[in-house]
């Protein structure tokens, strides 16, 4: 809606378009290379069979299922805990108070802990100390620890955007705090929270080092969540760096991962939109 007013504006516009295209070109090149190497090896069979011959043949069925389970555990923990923390920061804590300051700092610092330290920490806490061993639970919980700062910060920013007029209206109508959060705040922030979920899911799916030490390396379909199961990212790592001749299937697995991300992101957006409509219809 802002129109270009003068020649300098047009120049800036040109510059920005050029930058945007260059920046898009690099990852597109990467994705293209990936597709080029991996697509010849993708087939329906690839999704329906378990890996054979150290992953060089067969498929990724068991690995896909393990990944979804690990992600499930991660989200089940991250969502309530993260949303709760974000709500607390937004509703009950003054923006410049000491609690907000320290809580915010600790989240930012947590986001800088190397993934391999999370792996070792997760192993020590969940696998050894809490006795879960190499398992989907260990993996999912460790991932949740890692992903929480990102989720909380993003969700917090989304909540903060709620116009103050909504709050004032709620007080005027004598709506309880709980009601306000459920019926007004969360729906208005739902798009931002959806972004938070998408970013966290993406980060969780992308993690390798954490899962090698917690969810483990086993390629078999896990019988239960107490079992060890390899995730897509660990599988890609193994095929590319550890197994001679695994590069082709590593690319194919990466494409499966990309497809999974697309499916997950679309589902999240769809579900959130539906929830928002439902709440707003009443």
């Amino acid at each position, binding site marked *: *809606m802002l129109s*270009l*007013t003068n020649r300098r*504006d047009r120049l*800036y*516009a040109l510059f*920005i378009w050029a*930058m*945007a295209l260059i*920046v898009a070109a690099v*990852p597109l090149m*990467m994705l293209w*290379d*990936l597709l080029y190497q991996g697509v010849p090896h993708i087939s329906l069979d690839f999704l329906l069979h378990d890996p054979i011959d150290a992953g060089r043949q067969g498929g990724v069925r068991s690995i896909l299922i393990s990944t979804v389970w690990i992600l499930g555990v991660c989200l089940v923990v991250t969502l309530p*805990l*993260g949303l709760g*923390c974000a*709500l*607390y920061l937004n*509703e009950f804590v003054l923006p410049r108070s000491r609690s907000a300051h320290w*809580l915010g*700092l*600790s*989240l*930012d610092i947590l986001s*800088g*802990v*190397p*993934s*391999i*330290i999370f792996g*070792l*920490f997760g192993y020590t806490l969940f696998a050894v100390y809490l006795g879960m061993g190499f398992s989907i639970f260990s993996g999912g919980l460790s991932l949740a*620890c890692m992903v929480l*700062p990102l989720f*909380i*910060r*993003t969700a917090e*920013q989304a909540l*903060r955007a709620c*116009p103050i007029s909504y709050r004032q209206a*709620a007080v005027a109508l004598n709506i309880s*705090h*709980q009601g306000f*959060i459920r019926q007004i705040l969360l729906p208005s922030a739902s*798009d*931002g929270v959806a*972004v938070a979920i998408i*970013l966290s899911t*993406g*980060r969780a799916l992308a993690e*390798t*080092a954490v899962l090698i030490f917690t969810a483990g390396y086993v390629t078999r379909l896990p019988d239960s969540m107490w079992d060890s199961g390899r995730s*897509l*990212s660990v599988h*890609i790592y193994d095929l590319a760096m550890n197994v001679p001749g695994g590069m082709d299937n590593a690319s194919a697995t*990466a494409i499966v*991962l990309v497809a999974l991300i*697309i499916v997950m*992101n679309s589902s999240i957006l769809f579900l959130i939109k539906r929830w928002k409509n439902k709440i707003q219809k009443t």
Partner: protein
Amino acid sequence: MRSNFWLFNSLKLAAWLSAAILLLILFFLVNESLPLIQRIGLMRFFTDESWHPLSELYWLVPMLLASFYMAVGAVILATPLGVLVAIFGHYYAPEVLAKFYRALLELLSGIPSVVFGLWGMIVIVPWIVQWMPPGASLLAGIKVLTIMILPLVALTTDAALKRIPITYMSAAIAMGLSRWGTIRRISLPVAFPGILSGVVLQSGRALGETMAVLMVSGNVVQIPSSLFQPVRTLTANIALEMSYAMGEHRLALFCSGLLLLCLTIALVLLASYINRNQHA
């Protein structure tokens, strides 16, 4: 607003649990590193002559500098580019293109670091070799890290821009401001806290990135005198040597993890200081 006892306390619990994780990790790292620190003291990490843990030499400075340079380099490159891309998506691109761009960025944020590292090894490093061997270098690391953190910087900036109240925009049009003028003088300052929050998170990520830098930055323990020299970051060091480290070597690696955490704390404190001054 009338509040609920259960609401307040359950949310408070959630918040403190989240904070507790950091404390647990700190405790974990300190617990693992303490035996070595007690034996040789902290100064050894800065004064030993080299990093050869099997010969009990534990000089961490080159790796500390490498982690720092690489993260700073990546943030310096990714922040303006990411913000520009977000501005593009929000103010310049037609709706369809913007949606596609956003989807592309969300996709990129989910690609494993291994894939980025591999691409860096197969495409970026050989490209640098043609200019200046050995190719695997600080520059390669910075480039790959930039590609990795750019999507998230752009996405968080985009979210921040979306939150700007529409009244500001209407006011700008009413006053006849140019597009770029509006962006520079209204949108960016208003969105600054959101942008900064995203940048801080991503610089944390840049400091903590392990796999990708391991694959492209050469992993030679030295203080770099140019961008083209190979370096080893603290994270790559832990990943490279942890699998085979026993006894004191292992403890030394935990110490380096603790040192990295201190570096992160320093950077986060710096960012919060900047933010506070911005609002003052």
